[in-house]
């Protein structure tokens, strides 16, 4: 189980649970669109008050970290991913820059390069 609040730490359990959900999203254990465990199964699994789980989920929804879809359950929202993307973008940019440099050094035209990239991405898509 991903979450394990410690009831005797003195920190309200719903806050601990919120922190642990956010942490799971940051480490990539949970990604955008992933479904979180249902409130009932989670309360049962952790042997904790269902009201506490509900409170944590409500607060997380309020902060925009998760989305509660009626009847379907709780899902990780899109925006935390966007934030993460922004963090990784500079690194991605430098990888792309060095790759472009190496390909050009092989004497391949920009036209060809664009085609190669598109083919690579299209192939993945297929």
């Amino acid at each position: 189980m991903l979450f394990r609040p410690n009831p005797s730490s003195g920190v309200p359990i719903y806050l601990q649970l919120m922190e642990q959900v956010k942490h799971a999203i940051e480490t990539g254990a949970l990604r955008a669109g992933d479904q979180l465990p249902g409130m009932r199964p989670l309360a049962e699994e952790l042997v904790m008050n269902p009201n506490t789980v509900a409170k944590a989920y409500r607060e997380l929804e309020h902060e925009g970290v998760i989305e509660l879809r009626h009847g379907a359950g709780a899902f990780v929202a899109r925006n935390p991913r966007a934030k993460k993307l922004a963090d990784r973008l500079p690194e991605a940019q430098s990888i792309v820059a060095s790759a472009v440099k190496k390909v050009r050094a092989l004497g391949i035209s920009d036209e060809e390069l664009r085609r190669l990239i598109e083919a690579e991405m299209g192939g993945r898509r297929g």
Partner: protein
Amino acid sequence: MAEALVIEATALRKTYDGVDALRNLDLAVPAGSIYALVGRNGAGKTTLIKILMGMARATSGNVRVFGQNPGSSDEGIEIRRRIGFVSDEKDLYASMSVEELIRFTASFFPRWRNDLALEYSRRFALPPSLKIKALSRGMRTKLALLLALCRGADLLILDEPTSGLDPVMADDVLQALVAHVAAEELTVFFSSNQIAEVEQIADRIAIIDGGRAIVSGSVDELRERYCRIQLIFEDAAPPATLRSAGVERITRSGRVMTVLSSQGSATVLDEVRDLRPLSVEVSPVNLKEIFLQSVTVED
């Protein structure tokens, strides 16, 4: 559930042979909560529960369950129709078998849940034809819990539901309870002297001591309100007293002064700034510490 408060007690007093078991006890249990009654042995927990169940009558004060008086014979019956109860002793009819007692209990409750009775019998591995006198304490507790959960009750009153159980059994019982509460909309009022389980499942709590509720409220709120402030000084901690509201206790040890506050840290921090500490650290306090701080220790 229409009522905002399922259990309401004001200035409740109960005297046994001139000795107060409860004195001026106030209590408000909102619908839908898991409410824990915590206290030392002899603090008055069982007495309060017996009054709620109509087994004992209050000497004075006012008590209402679902808005009705449990001390009246007729209203007591109406109240008990809506309550699932597990007693302190977990005493059941020794001469009946598990199956017979389930059928017996079912006959009193029109909303009896046969589906749940079957499910919990399996989950708890209760042998239907075994006589109750042959059951271990753990098994008897599980059966008592089954008999309480399946009544289709709006309120569960459990007197020390896990006392005398080993940790595995206790966890089984709590898990079943939590699962049940998650599935059915109801209020749980339980007494316990296991702070760990209270921290785990309760969202509201009353600490009772000497027959009075000395601390009560939402568990999260208590956790947020109570804090420990540790101050480190250049020299020995000054023997100053703090006047801020909510200062429950001050302890000094060498250069370290520890303040336990029940009203957050802000006012205390303002006040101690004048004492010029080298460092200030605020840390959370768990329920066990709140409990130990609140109850009187006679020995």
